[in-house]
């Protein structure tokens, strides 16, 4: 079964129910969403998209973007969701890296993307949407293209389980984002697990808070649509405004909420939740980082009724362990809750440095296998090989996360074994930030560290040595970073040094940098 069968089946079963709604009030039924996706599928096929190809989607969150996703899947191709708020240099690199056949782009981003892709030597066909919202812009674009030349009806491809469904690019330690390849089987095995675990029904209203290039979007998009429920899209800008979000949750009568803990922490601190009736919520799911207990406790006080689930997993596996927060948080508890047990469609082991199982209760790296696990990174055979542990009993994905099994059988997250951190739920390789800083003409050396801040978040601090020994303007540096990196990767603070501390083997001494003010 292909991932797009989710829509096809619900369109047959519940054609007139609302599939997707935008906060603007615009909505689309299952029948209309399928019809719109089919029309775009025909156009994509006419442009040469075939099974196994990639299509980039550079469109703000909207019904138009959802229809585009399904259209690409119906072609048997993989969709590559770009971050509409990221700089063109990064998005252009991604489009070129996986050599997309077609780029679907919102008009405002078109010129910069075309220039960047041309610079990188790729010239995909381009479908341009004049604005977005309600699917109308996509519909108008398709009509315009149809007037220029008909696209004959094409068949929806019956995808094989191992065909790629989407590629999600995450931060890469070498300075370039890397594409995690996810197949139809990867996605559907996860969506089936979500269905068993959260038992969605037609009357459910799911939030879609995460951007589509973030793996949380897979649960958001496909779980409700598999059950004839409704998905409410939260646009990128509203997603960061706690007051607007709280108002939206109440107005849209959301029943299942899913986001990073950062957003929930902001909601509870700045959202004036006491002024809103959010009683419709039955489940709060969170993932992507540790939820500080102080904010979780406050959230449960504001919203006492729903069940709370801590979901854990890297993009490479999507959610691979889960934990239901107890109805009452013990008053003395200060440490975060565990990440729980391995999801039923996967298997997990905790291993030592040699790759052997550690005894229960000892710290080790969590490794996962099963139908939800990626086959690897696009075009990066070496990094893919390094990401997997080959043992006599099979091939396991190394999460890079250090865990230990608590006496009750739940896994507790302990830390990382590398330089990846989570900033507001986003994966950030500190090495990618360093690579960005090295592109600044005045920077001679750069080392980036992450420290906990007062508010239980993370401060990313860049230590720099400049060519002439002079301090640089922070404003200028941040602006420079914004031209290369997504906003969540821009360092919060900068420090300047005549030279960076070195270890005895002449490597940057990150431990000392962590201790420097």
């Amino acid at each position, binding site marked *: 079964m292909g991932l797009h069968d989710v829509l096809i089946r619900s369109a047959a079963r519940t054609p007139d129910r609302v599939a997707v709604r935008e906060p603007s009030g615009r909505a689309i039924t299952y029948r209309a969403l399928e019809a719109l996706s089919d029309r775009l599928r025909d156009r994509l096929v006419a442009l040469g998209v075939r099974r196994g190809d990639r299509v980039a989607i550079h469109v703000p969150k909207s019904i138009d973007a959802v229809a585009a996703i399904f259209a690409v899947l119906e072609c048997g191709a993989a969709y590559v969701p770009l971050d509409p708020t990221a700089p063109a240099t990064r998005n252009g690199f991604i489009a070129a890296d996986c050599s997309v056949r077609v780029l679907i782009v919102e008009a405002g981003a078109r010129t910069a993307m075309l220039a960047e892709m041309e610079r990188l030597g790729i010239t995909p066909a381009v479908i341009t949407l004049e604005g977005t919202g309600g699917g109308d812009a996509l519909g108008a674009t398709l009509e315009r293209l149809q007037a220029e030349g008909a696209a004959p009806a094409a068949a929806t491809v019956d995808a094989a389980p191992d065909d790629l469904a989407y590629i999600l690019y995450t931060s890469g330690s070498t300075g370039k984002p890397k594409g995690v390849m996810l197949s139809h089987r990867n996605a559907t095995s996860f969506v089936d697990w979500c269905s068993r675990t959260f038992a969605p029904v037609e009357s459910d209203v799911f939030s879609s808070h995460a951007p589509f290039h973030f793996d949380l979007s897979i649960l958001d998009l496909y779980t409700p649509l598999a059950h004839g429920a409704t998905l409410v899209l939260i646009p990128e*800008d509203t997603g*960061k*405004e*706690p*007051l*607007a979000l709280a*108002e939206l949750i109440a107005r849209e009568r959301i029943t299942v909420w899913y986001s990073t803990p950062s957003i929930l922490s*902001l909601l509870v601190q*700045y959202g004036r939740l006491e002024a809103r009736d959010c009683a419709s919520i039955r489940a709060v799911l969170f993932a992507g980082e540790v939820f500080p207990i102080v904010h979780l406790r406050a959230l449960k006080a504001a919203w006492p009724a729903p069940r709370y689930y801590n979901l854990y997993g890297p993009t490479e596996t999507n959610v691979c362990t889960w934990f239901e927060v107890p109805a009452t948080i013990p008053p003395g508890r200060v440490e975060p809750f565990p990440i729980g047990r391995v999801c039923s469609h996967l298997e997990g082991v905790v291993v030592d440095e040699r790759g052997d199982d550690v005894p229960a209760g000892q710290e080790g790296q969590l490794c996962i296998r099963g139908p939800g696990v990626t086959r690897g990174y696009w075009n990066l055979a070496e990094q893919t090989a390094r990401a997997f542990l080959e043992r006599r009993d099979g091939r396991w994905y190394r999460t890079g996360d250090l865990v230990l099994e608590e006496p009750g059988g739940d896994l507790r997250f302990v830390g990382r074994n590398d330089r990846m951190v989570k900033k*507001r739920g986003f994966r950030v390789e500190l090495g990618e930030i360093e690579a960005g800083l090295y592109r600044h003409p005045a920077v001679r050396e750069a080392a980036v560290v992450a420290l906990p801040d007062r508010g239980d*978040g993370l401060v990313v601090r860049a230590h720099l040595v400049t060519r002439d020994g002079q*301090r640089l*303007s*922070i*404003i*200028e540096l*941040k*602006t420079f*970073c*914004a031209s290369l990196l997504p*906003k*969540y990767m*821009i360092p*919060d*603070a*900068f*420090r*300047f040094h005549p030279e960076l501390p070195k270890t005895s083997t002449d490597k940057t001494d990150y431990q000392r940098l962590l201790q420097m003010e």
Partner: protein
Amino acid sequence: MSETQEIQGKVKAFVLREFLDGEDPAALGPETRLFTTGILDSIATLKLVAFLEKEFDITIEAHEADAQNLDTLVDIARLVASKR
């Protein structure tokens, strides 16, 4: 000192202290674009709004707290002045 200058001065000191530690004060001009350029992020918006509400005893509505209204010191001072 005019009211606008006074507001700008207080906001500038706050922005430098909270978000641009180590910056030369002269580099932050009244028209320096803070949010639309990515210098400050969405969390900074929340902190800035909380500061403005407390410091100037005003209420800023959700729709007023976006990057367009708060992009420069001039924009911020204008919003605050309109509330007093």
